[in-house]
């Protein structure tokens, strides 16, 4: 066992963990933050995406001990009181069907618009293609990200 310290959604955690535990397992099984999904365990599907120090990463591939001292944001940390514009746009545009990839898509979108406030269509596609979605064909997710960018440009900030 190894003791680690990390911040998740603004809260500091000190926990003894098995060194082989992934960040995904830590979030789901230790903290019961089940919004981060387990789709393949090997970094193919992207459903386990979280933000690590602000950047999207695949939590199923990262041993939690590697996140020592880092700040993790999961889907549960995106909207406290109200929906983030990316979330709002995804609801309004019908970008959600089964919803299993949705938390990862939201985090992809939040990161994209944080770094590229006016993304091009190709940048949006690039961002979306990191996570598999089998329901939507991606069309409405892309529209939602572009709509969210417009909203945020007009001052609707999270």
């Amino acid at each position: 066992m190894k003791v680690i310290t990390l911040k998740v959604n603004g809260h500091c955690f000190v926990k003894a963990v098995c060194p082989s535990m992934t960040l995904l397992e830590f979030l789901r099984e230790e903290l019961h933050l089940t919004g981060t999904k387990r789709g393949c365990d090997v970094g193919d599907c992207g459903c386990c995406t979280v933000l690590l120090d602000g950047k999207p990463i695949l939590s199923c591939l990262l041993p939690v001990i590697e996140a020592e001292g880092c700040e993790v944001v999961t889907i549960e940390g995106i909207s406290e009181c109200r929906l983030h514009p990316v979330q709002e746009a995804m609801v309004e545009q019908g970008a959600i069907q089964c919803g299993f990839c949705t938390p990862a898509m939201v985090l992809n979108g939040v990161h994209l618009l944080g770094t590229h406030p006016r993304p091009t269509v190709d940048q949006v596609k690039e961002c979306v293609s990191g996570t598999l979605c089998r329901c939507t064909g991606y069309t409405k997710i892309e529209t939602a990200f572009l709509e969210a960018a417009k909203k945020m440009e007009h001052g609707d900030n999270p």
Partner: protein
Amino acid sequence: MSSYTVIGKPTPMVGSREKVTGKAKFTDDIRVANPLIVGLLRSPLASAKISRLDLSAALALEGVRAGVTGKDFDSTIGVLPISRDEPPLARDCVRYVGEPVAAIAAESSSLCRQALELIRVEYDPIEPCLDSRKALKETSHPIHPELKKPSNLHKSVTQQFGNLEKGFASAQAVVEGSFDFAPLTHAFTEPFATQVEIDTDSNLTVYSATQVPHYLHLALSGALQLPLHKIRVVKPYLGGGFGGKSDPLPHEIVAARLALISGRNVRLLLDREETFFTSHGRHPTQIGMRLGLHSKKGITALSGEMLIDGGAYASYGVVTSYYNGVLLQGPYPIPNLSFHCDRVYTNKLTCGAMRGHGGVNPRFASEVLLDMACEKLQLDPCETRLRLIHKAETLTVNQFRITSCGLKEGLATAMERSRWKEKVKKLPFGRGIGVACGFFISGSALPIHWNKIPQSTVRLTIDFDGAVTVYSGASDIGQGSDTVLAQMVAEVLGISLSHIKVISADTRLCPVDLGSYSSRVTFMAGNAARNAAIRMRKGLVAAACGILEIKPPRYRNPKPAESFFRQGGRKPDFDSAYLGPNPDYSDGFLFQDAKISALSGKAKGKQLDYFEVVKTAVEDHGTLQTQGIYLSPKLGGTFKGAGAGLSPSYSFTAFITEVTVNPQTGFIKVDKVTCAHDCGQPLNPMAVEGQIEGSIHMGLGQALMEGLDYVNGAVQNASFLEYKIPSAFEQPEIEMIYDLSRDNEGPFGAKEAGEGVLAPIIPSVANAIYDAVGIRLCSVPMTPDKVLAALNAKRGNHT
């Protein structure tokens, strides 16, 4: 066209906010108290006798609480009562790589893994049968000796209508071809998961990622020999199904058994590779087909020979076998038609239902052949199809009722929007445009279990606060079924969606619905929900009349709009399900914006608050409760297999697709698709669009890249890295046309939108490739290597 206030409006799906915030609980997100972790040991061989199976070392490990093998189960399972041939765990022999042979329940996942490694299994390998042609031949060791058949043939179906010989003789062009199709998996993102809670009296609550809670309920009861009332099946949020979660599956039975043996709650999550092994995907298929076309008479004859490779077990295979032929009956009349379909067992993954079930591959063959025939006769493929399409209110030769059909208008609009005439045969080499059409059932008219119970029952309650709770057994699998049910109830009662809560897919709380498969939910559960809402409205009208001190209305039975070819069934009454698109409730009231207004009589113009009326009604009766049902009318002929493909209504689809083919690399890019889909009244246009876009994604996956690769019976690409599905970059520009008809029996005139769209996009790509570079690809997926081989062959022919 309509005066609806909720129906037909783009509506974000019920549950979207839960999903977008990560609060939605999928099966593995539920935390049952202190569960044992279940793991399965799987066969490394495609075919073998199990000569020894010893769990003693595994069970001796501290922290291991239970273990089971095939011997712990007395019966076999299978979704169709006529072909239950799959043991929950292999007994005596294994039939595919990945088949579960034993299961362990332990205190932790690491202990469970350790225990699985301690299981001693010895196999005597048997020569596997991996080839579907060889499977037809006699063998000394059939895969299912218990069937006492000389070969590995599982099911053989034949139907013939009209006179083929005369039909082909009267054609001006007869074309034929051989086609083959790779095996596919559904590739939904949520892996299979099941959790079981057990109480002190051994009552089970089974949470499972399933499209068919009712069938799972029945299967658990049968396999565990427990009465139904001791089992409650709950489907939590579900991460995609597409047919892959529409069978009761071995791991679900095994998890429940382990809960019973250990007396403990259990948790089971299959990994991605196991999920590939467990899904019953699209059958690998070989088709030989012949089609005769006459420029005036239309398709004069069609005959097809299909061979479908079912893998190790039956699943939906009997239905798939029929669907391969009967789903050729639309969207054009074919007076002389015959097909023969053989389904064989092989030592590969079991195949079953996948979006467009059974109709997808023959659709490719027939639409490519129709294109070839048009070319022979120098006919425009779109104009020809326009002339051929079924008229509304006709009967096909195998006695399918075509109630509504808006495809003609749809295809004509698609031609305009895509500028078909300016493009076909006129685009530069390497660019092409192609067309294909299809049709699909809106729910199977016959239930899988032969009984007279309504195919869907929906119950509504309204308590003193006026909020409506909808109880339905239908499974929302992401397609939006909870949303359409809520919309329909909101429409009838004139209240907003925020006042409606849907409780669905819980066998303890909800009345029976057969599940989410065969595109049945909108039509069948939808009609039941509307039926229940109309009955609720009657009660509220009575209360309103009491307040207004007027006589309650005398309901007149509407002329059933379906008077055309009803064949038996119950007589429709006012609140029957057969009100179709008719918005007239015959009660003299308007229910809108939570107000109930009298439109005629003494009280004309008076308006009551919906909540006040509810309060009065509740004071009189207590909680208000109604129930609505749907039972398909009696349909179809009396010949063998007449029930296959019968549906109360059919959807229709046309695709015009534009592609760019790179003759150097063979790479195909789909640039634009124009899709016309006749789903009757689009109840929720946002969801209809989502279904069309998703079907295009999945159809293009099959068209261009998807396929399971087998070596010696073992799937080589059971991961998302190696089983490629289209990414955002492959999704083409899409134009959609979908408001094309009103079905007289569909709820508010609606039909299906989730499956029919998929099939015709694949041949539309093939026909566009022909327009682009002059090659006919007959092997799906149409990968660059096949394009290059065909181009080389064509060049060879020219030199």
